[in-house]
C-alpha cells in the first residue's frame, strides 16, 4: 500500500459515514513527516487543535498548518487570515519554491468543493500536483504528493468522476465486521490501472497496521464499494502491456469469480459426439471439386447427360420456331 500511495501526484481518500478517513489521512501524514518531508495542511473542517491531537511533538513540529476553519470568509480582516480565501491558500502552496519532497494534505476536499466552483478547483489541484514541471524549467522534478480527503456521499457522480479522472491514486474505504479495508486504484501514466485491496487498522498512536486478510470470523460477502471485478492485479512495469491477466497480490480469501460461460443457457446443442464429428468430416460438399467428381469428368461414362436442358413450356410461352431476326440483313 505504501508504494502505491507514496507516488507523487494526487491521492484521493474517499470515505463514507461508516468508514471515516481522517484517521487514515493522519496516519499517512505522520508517516511522511517521519520520513523527513515537509507537510502542509489546509484545514477546513476541524479546528487546528483537534487535528493536531494524536500527533506527538516531533511530528507536530513538522506540520505547517493553514487554518481556514477559524475564519473561512475572512471576516476578522486580521493579518493572519489567509488572503484570497482557501483558493488563495492553494495558490500560495503552488508558488512555494523550497526544495525537497513535500506532502500537501487537504482536509477536506469536500469542503472546498462545496465552496468553490468545481472547474477552478480541478485546475488548482492539477497545478498543485504538477508544480515540479511549472517553474521555469531547470529545477529537477520534486515529488509533490497531495492527499485529499473526500466524503463521497456529499457529492454527485459529476464532481466525483471529474476528480477521479485527475487522481493518480484513489483509495476507497470500506470494510466488514469492524475491519477496515482500502480498495486502491492506481493510475500511473502510460500504464494500465491496477487495483488492490488492503486490510488495515489504525493504532491509537496513528500508525498504520497492515493486515493480510479479512477477519477470520467474518462471513465473506461483497462490500458495497467493491467493483464487480474484485481480483487484484499486479503492478505493471511495462507500459501498454498486451493482455490483462490476473497475477499475484490477491489479498482476499474469497474464491475467484467463475468465468462467465456464454454457452451455459442456450436452448440448442452445440456439442458434437464422436460419430457426428466423423460423419461431418467425411461429408462431401456439393460444390467442392473432389477427386470423385474429377474422375467422373475425365472418364465420360455411359448415359452421361451433362448438358441436357429439360424445359416444360408454360401456357403463356410463345414457342415460335421462326427466328424473329431472320429478316435482318446482318
Amino acid at each position, binding site marked *: 500500500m505504501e508504494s502505491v500511495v507514496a507516488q507523487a501526484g494526487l491521492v484521493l481518500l474517499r470515505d463514507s459515514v461508516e468508514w471515516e478517513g481522517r484517521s487514515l489521512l493522519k496516519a499517512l501524514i505522520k508517516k511522511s513527516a517521519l520520513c523527513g518531508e515537509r507537510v502542509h495542511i489546509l484545514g477546513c473542517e476541524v479546528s487546528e487543535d483537534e487535528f493536531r491531537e494524536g500527533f506527538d511533538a516531533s511530528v507536530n513540529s513538522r506540520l505547517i498548518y493553514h487554518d481556514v476553519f477559524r475564519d473561512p470568509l475572512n471576516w476578522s480582516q486580521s493579518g493572519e487570515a489567509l488572503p484570497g480565501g482557501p483558493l488563495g491558500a492553494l495558490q500560495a502552496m503552488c508558488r512555494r519554491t523550497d526544495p525537497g519532497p513535500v506532502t500537501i494534505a487537504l482536509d477536506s476536499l469536500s469542503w472546498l468543493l462545496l465552496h468553490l466552483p*468545481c472547474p*477552478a478547483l480541478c485546475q488548482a489541484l492539477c497545478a498543485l500536483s504538477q508544480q515540479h514541471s511549472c517553474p521555469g524549467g531547470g529545477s529537477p522534478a520534486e515529488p509533490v504528493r497531495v492527499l485529499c480527503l473526500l466524503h463521497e456521499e456529499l457529492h454527485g457522480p*459529476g464532481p466525483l468522476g471529474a476528480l477521479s479522472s485527475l487522481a493518480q491514486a484513489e483509495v476507497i474505504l470500506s470494510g466488514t465486521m469492524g475491519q477496515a479495508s482500502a480498495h486502491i486504484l492506481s493510475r500511473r501514466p502510460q500504464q494500465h490501472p491496477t487495483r488492490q485491496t488492503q486490510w488495515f487498522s489504525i493504532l491509537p498512536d496513528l500508525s498504520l497496521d497492515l493486515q493480510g486478510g479479512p477477519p477470520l470470523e467474518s462471513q465473506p460477502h461483497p462490500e458495497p464499494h467493491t467493483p464487480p471485478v474484485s481480483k487484484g492485479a499486479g503492478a505493471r512495469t511495462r507500459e501498454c502491456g498486451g493482455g490483462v491477466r490476473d497475477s499475484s497480490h490477491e489479498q482476499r480469501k474469497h474464491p475467484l469469480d467463475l468465468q462467465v460461460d456464454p*454457452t451455459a443457457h442456450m436452448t440448442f446443442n452445440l456439442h458434437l459426439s464422436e460419430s457426428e464429428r466423423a460423419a461431418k468430416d467425411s461429408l462431401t*460438399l456439393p460444390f467442392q471439386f473432389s477427386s470423385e467428381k474429377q474422375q467422373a469428368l475425365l472418364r465420360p461414362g455411359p448415359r452421361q447427360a451433362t448438358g441436357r436442358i429439360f424445359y416444360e413450356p408454360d401456357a403463356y410461352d410463345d414457342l415460335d420456331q421462326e427466328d424473329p431476326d431472320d429478316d435482318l440483313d446482318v
Partner: protein
Amino acid sequence: MAAAADCGTGAGSTGSIGAAACKNNVTSFQRKGPRASGTDSGCSRLVSIAGTRPSVRNGQLLVSTGLPALDQLLGGGLAVGTVLLIEEDKYNTYSSLLFKFFLAEGIINGHTLLVASAKEDPADILQELPAPLLDDNCKKDFDEDVCNHKTPDSNIKMKIAWRYQLLPKMESGPVSSSRFGHYYDASKRMPQELIEESKWHGFFFPEKLSSTLTTEPRSLTGGYRKLLQFIQNVIYEEGFDGSNPQKKQKNILRIGIQNLGSPLWGDDICCTENCDNSHSLTKFLYVLRGLLRTSLSACIITMPTHLIQNKAVISRVTNLSDTVVGLESFTGSGRETNPLYKDYHGLIHIRQIPRLNNLIYDVSDVKDLAFKLKRKLFTIECITKLTSYGTQGQKYLLPGHLQRKFAINKNRYFRTLHNLNKTY
C-alpha cells in the same frame, strides 16, 4: 472544400485523346503531359501533398489517422477539413494512444502539428510519441505473429468457403514507409531527431491562464476562445487557408486537442447536469469546424464523454463532429473475465461517419468491433467469433486482417457462421 476541388480535376490523368485531336484540330482537348518544373500557380493540376491521397469513393482528400485498421473502417482515412472525435475510455489509456498515433503519423509525413492540452505540456506529449515500424525488422515480427496464430488453425481448413482460398491475401502487414498509413510500436519512443526536425505549435492551457485565479466562474468560453484564436493565428500565419500565397509546398496542419470538455479547460459540463454555460463546448466545436473547412487541416479531439452528465450535450457534440469513434476498454469492468472477450482489450464503436459531398455514407456492416494492443500492433478485429457446432473454441481470427462474418440461416433452428475474407 478547397482541397476537394483541386483533387477532383487532377485525380485522373487525361488519356491519349490529344494525339488524335491535334491532327484535325476538331476538339480543344489538349493532352497534359507531365511538366518538368515542380509547382505552378496557374496549373489546375493537384500538387500532391505528402501523406495524403484521394478517396476512391468521392475524390475527397484523405489523411491517415495513424492506424491503418481505423483508416479502413472510416472509408480510407480521415478527410482533410474534418474533425475526428474520440470518446475516451474510462481510464484514458487507449484514447491517448490513438491521439499519439495521429500525431506520430503527422511527423512521419512531415505535416505541421498543433497540440493543445490542459493537462500535459505539449512538449512532453511529443516526447512520448511511439516509434514507427519500418520494413525489415517489423515484417519478420509480424510474420511470426501470423504464424503463431495460424498453427492451431491449419488443420481446420475452410471447407465450406473453399473458393476464398484462391483469393489473394489482403495486405495487412507493414510495408514501405512511403505508404499511406504506418504502423507504430507503442513500446518504443520516436527518435529525437524526427521530433526536432518537425514543425509543431503547442498550446498548454495553464500557461495561458491569467495569473490570478478568481473564485467566480470566469466566462467559460475563456479557454476555448483562446484556443480558437491560437488555431486561427496559426492557420493564417502559416498559410494553411491559402491566404498567403506561398511559394513552398502545401502542407497539412494536424491539430490535436486532448481532453476537451474536462474541468481543466474551465468547463463544467463534466461536473453538473444543469450547467450555466452549457453551450460553450458546442459553440467551440461549431467555430472549429468552420475554421477547418476553410483550411488544409485535420483535427483529432479526445473527449471524456463518460464524465459528461447531460446526455443531450453528448448528442449535440456528436452531431457537431464529423467522425465519432468511441472506445470502451474492459479494464475494471465485468467483461474482463468473459471468455468471449478474453483476447481483446476493449470494444470500438464507430458512432458516426460523415457524409461529405455525398448523399449516403459508407457505413460498415460490422458493428461488433474490438481492439487489442499487442506488443507492437494495435489491431481492430471483428468480435463475433462464435462457436459453430462441433468446433467450440475455434478461432477464426487472424491478426491484422479485417474480416467480415456473415450469418447464414441453415434451417430455422440453428445458424452457422462462416468466415470470409473481404478484399477491397
